[in-house]
């Protein structure tokens, strides 16, 4: 195996091409904490070559209606080309309701800190 890695012969996930393969791009949150009031993916879906656009309306288990950090997932696009998927992801329009956020360690440690989600440890 090691020699295959050292000669460029080992195939990584991105090295596989299959017939009909699509490329996925994510639209990520630029807000630390917000609720999605509405998402409009019509413009993205109309681009030729875009196979699917998912927001929290279509995939609530994967794309929650509350984003909890900058970079959290807002939408997923599958398209025939990677650039097309990225362009379509930027075309999804969001109406976001800003929620309180803790932006530094001191604020996060305060009793009245904004909480973006809880993890239960049992």
């Amino acid at each position, binding site marked *: 195996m090691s020699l295959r*890695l050292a000669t*460029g012969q080992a195939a990584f996930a991105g090295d596989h091409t299959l017939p009909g393969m699509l490329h996925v791009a994510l639209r990520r949150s630029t807000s630390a904490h917000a609720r999605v009031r509405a998402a409009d993916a019509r413009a993205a879906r109309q681009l030729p070559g875009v196979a699917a656009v998912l927001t929290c309306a279509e995939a609530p288990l994967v794309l929650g209606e509350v984003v909890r950090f900058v970079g959290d997932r807002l939408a997923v696009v599958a398209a025939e080309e990677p*650039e097309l998927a990225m362009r379509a992801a930027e075309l999804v329009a969001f109406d976001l309701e800003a929620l309180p956020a803790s932006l530094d360690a001191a604020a996060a440690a305060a009793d009245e800190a904004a909480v973006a989600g809880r993890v239960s440890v049992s």
Partner: protein
Amino acid sequence: MLAHGIRSYHRPTRIEEAQDLAAQGAVLLAGGTRVLTSAKAAANVVDLVGLRLDVVDVEDEDLHVGATTTLSELADSAAAHSLSAGLLPLACRTAVPSPLLRGMATIGGEAIAADPDSELVAALLALNAVFMVSHPEGPRESPALRFLRDPGRDLAGGGVLRALVVPGAPDGAALERVAALPSLPPLVAVAVTTKVSGDKLARVRVAVTGLDGPPARVLDAESKLERTAGEEDVLETAASLVASNARFRDDEAASASLRRRMARVLSLRALRLAISRGRQRQPLATTRPRPAPLRRVPAPLPNFTSGRVELQLNGRAARLDADARTTLFELLRSAQVYGVKAGCGSGRCGTCAVLLDGRPVASCLTLAVRAQGRSVLTLEGLGSVERPHPLQTAFAEAGAAQCGYCTPGLLLGARALLEAVPHPSEADVRDALAGLCRCTGYARAVAAVQATAGRS
């Protein structure tokens, strides 16, 4: 992906043609490390490689450096070392710590970028370099103090930076920096040069980074030092002047007051070193100079928008379709050369590395059309599972390939090193592989390269 705005590519052989295109708004392309990572989209690019502005030579004790000389070539140049008291080669190394990017980035490109945190710009200020610009309105010579404050002013209207001249070597120099990590730009850097006459300091130049704007000289501190014997209390006063008179930047990396305090300490340290080195005529230590590799100059290409790129790919003739905007990375992947991998897209990780005419380049920052008529070697071309290159065998035996993802940059960097230096020191090997793998301490990779060198 930032290359995707490019619509046309021009490769002139006469500087007047480059001036005309620049006057029409085309972007000048030298190493590609700035242009292809810039947020500003370039529609038309002019490749300067055909102008042969990459010569380093000495005229009347002055160092002449062609604008498209790479930082690697300068870092390895004996002339640059001796005519800058070692400052220029050292600044090339610390300003661009990645050997892959250093082999692509050019001195002209770095100077024009006017990066506020560039210690290379500070070094050029401390060396009082003169910038030679070819311009449709006639040649211009612009001193560092003017040029580096706003390079766009001297270049506007079709100017092409041709060369820079470092006049008269200093006796001593020092470059002191502080950064969160060696691979990050300095929070503050101080470059100092000295000229000594008897006991006295005939001339001192102090330049500093981390400012609210481009790096700058601190003239008040310099005049405090000149014609003194560099007594400790004078150095203290000068260092305090650097801290108080330069306008330091306040940002998320460091507050202005922290930068001010660091600048005082670094200035004091740099002044002491540059003065004692000046008295002993002792240049800054650096690794030993190497001869620059021979470069083939590609044929002129007046206007390329799309077409066939003919190249030697892993020893075989290949003809591949490309647009002006296509990167060499995309070209190779479209030809199913999967030993070239996508990583950071900014030349830092090296997983897209290839050897272009024997020199390592990041294929994600190289336009495909630049490979026209040249030879490209990827990991597959180095050797195969059936017939591996000794370096590949050594990597496999030492377990140095690990996950294999950054291996292209490591192996091709090692191969280029061994071509230039058949028996490298451990420091040479570490320098050649620096920054290419994020997961390890390089112990196995360094051992594999040295084992290969030992067997040859």
